[in-house]
């Protein structure tokens, strides 16, 4: 194997440029305001409430995504059926949909005048201008991040393990719960982290579908944009907290999936 020095140099340059481009803006957030000011402006009314709402709504959305997304991804990973690739494309659609479009689409479906608006009203369910609507918006945009990853993880599970389980008389449900989910744990965790991160950062769909009201629908990203005009320090402070939370989510997923990966390797 020969490695051309110029090519190596190209790779190193590309990585350096990528790294600087992706991290410098994040560094700038922390460079822009001294820590004491950051902490002080977090005490301001509304900031903590927005963070609390963001956490609450994104965790709820993640729970819904896991509950529906895990079996759905398992089905997509293990079955071949007519129109499978169409179904996969449809599931992935929110990935490429502009968030504002997602918000309008949700309004057109679940809003008071939407396709299912009458049904929801009869059921006494309100989503627009309610925290539940925020959860719906987050779930909509974040689902594909999990489902894609979960599907890939299930596809990578060693088929002989699944076969052995079936040979030993375990039913499909048992094989799924006892063998497939633990074996795919690393991928499932990574998918959860990506979906959670996406949900935490959601802005456009929330604003268009659920609105923005302090304590009810104003999540941290919405609060950041509202403060941008008048209170830059406070906007930066909230941004810094979101950066830290996102990094923690990503790192714990990496750590957990790393140890989960090792555990399943050891088992195999």
């Amino acid at each position, binding site marked *: 194997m020969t490695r051309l020095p110029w090519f190596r140099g190209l790779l190193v340059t590309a990585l350096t440029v990528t790294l600087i481009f992706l991290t410098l803006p994040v560094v700038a957030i922390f460079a822009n305001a001294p820590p004491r000011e950051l902490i002080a402006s977090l005490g301001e009314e509304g900031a903590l409430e927005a963070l609390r709402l963001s956490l609450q709504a994104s965790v709820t959305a993640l729970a819904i995504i896991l509950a529906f997304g895990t079996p759905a991804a398992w089905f997509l990973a293990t079955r071949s059926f007519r129109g499978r690739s169409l179904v996969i494309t449809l599931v992935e659609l929110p990935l490429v949909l502009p968030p504002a479009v997602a918000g*309008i689409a949700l*309004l*057109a479906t679940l*809003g*008071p*005048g*939407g396709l299912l*608006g009458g049904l929801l009203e009869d059921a006494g369910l309100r989503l*627009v*201008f309610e925290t539940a609507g925020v959860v719906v918006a987050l779930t909509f945009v974040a689902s594909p991040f999990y489902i894609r990853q979960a599907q890939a993880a299930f596809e990578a599970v060693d088929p002989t393990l699944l076969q052995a389980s079936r040979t030993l008389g375990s039913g499909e449900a048992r094989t799924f719960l006892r063998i497939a989910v633990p074996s795919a744990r690393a991928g499932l965790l990574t998918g959860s982290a990506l979906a959670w991160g996406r949900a935490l950062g959601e802005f456009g769909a929330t*604003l*268009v579908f*659920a*609105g*923005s*009201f*302090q304590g*009810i*629908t*104003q999540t941290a990203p919405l609060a950041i*944009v*509202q403060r*941008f*005009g*008048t209170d*830059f320090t406070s906007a930066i402070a909230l941004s810094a907290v979101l950066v830290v939370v996102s990094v923690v989510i990503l790192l714990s997923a990496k750590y957990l999936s790393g140890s989960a990966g090792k555990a399943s390797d050891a088992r195999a």
Partner: protein
Amino acid sequence: MFLASGCGGSDPSDGPTPLTVSAAASLTEALPAYADAIGAGVRFSFAGSDELTAQIRQGAPVDVFAAASTELPDALFAEGLVEKPVVFASNSLVIAVPANSGIDSIQDLTEPGVDLVTGTEEVPFGAYTRDLLDRLPAAQREAILANVRSEESDVKAAVGKLTQGAADAAFTYASDVTAASGQLRAIDLPPRLQPEVAYGVTVVKGSERPDAARAFVADLTGPDGRRALRDAGFEPPPGG
């Protein structure tokens, strides 16, 4: 530098680069019509005036700033970031409702279950709404505030909530109802409640085409500007 002095032309139509105009969301219809009328090549950026103000403070490369208030351009002028602002139009605040709505007066907004949308306190239409509500008796004001479901970052977002059927009513400008071409109906407010809504425009310092920018601002108060603004539902500047 010498390039600019070498050209020296001030005709806005033959400039190599279009003017960048940051304008209040409520000017979304009026300003492009005006730019067409005078044949100026313009790139518009429409948003809440407060957000545009922040962008100019952060050094955004903007030639002209047109706001839905006089306070924001005045503040930028005081900070030395823009030239002296000119008042070029006024507007009135109305209650905007879907065309088929049963809401007919400000008193109707106190009814429980009415979903009302307003602006944040930073964006001009939100600030004007607060001025107006402050002139109401406390009980009426509280009942209306209890119905506020969302605080939007610009007036067109509030209009969107109405036209999408998400909200029952919003405080918007009269011109926004004109722009919604029949989808919305305006309920006028009693004159004693009406806040003074004046629009300021200014040339941003550091503009690469200051002459074209000044011409754009000057013509806005001339016949072409007046006509475009009137057609879009604006009124002449206070006392003008």
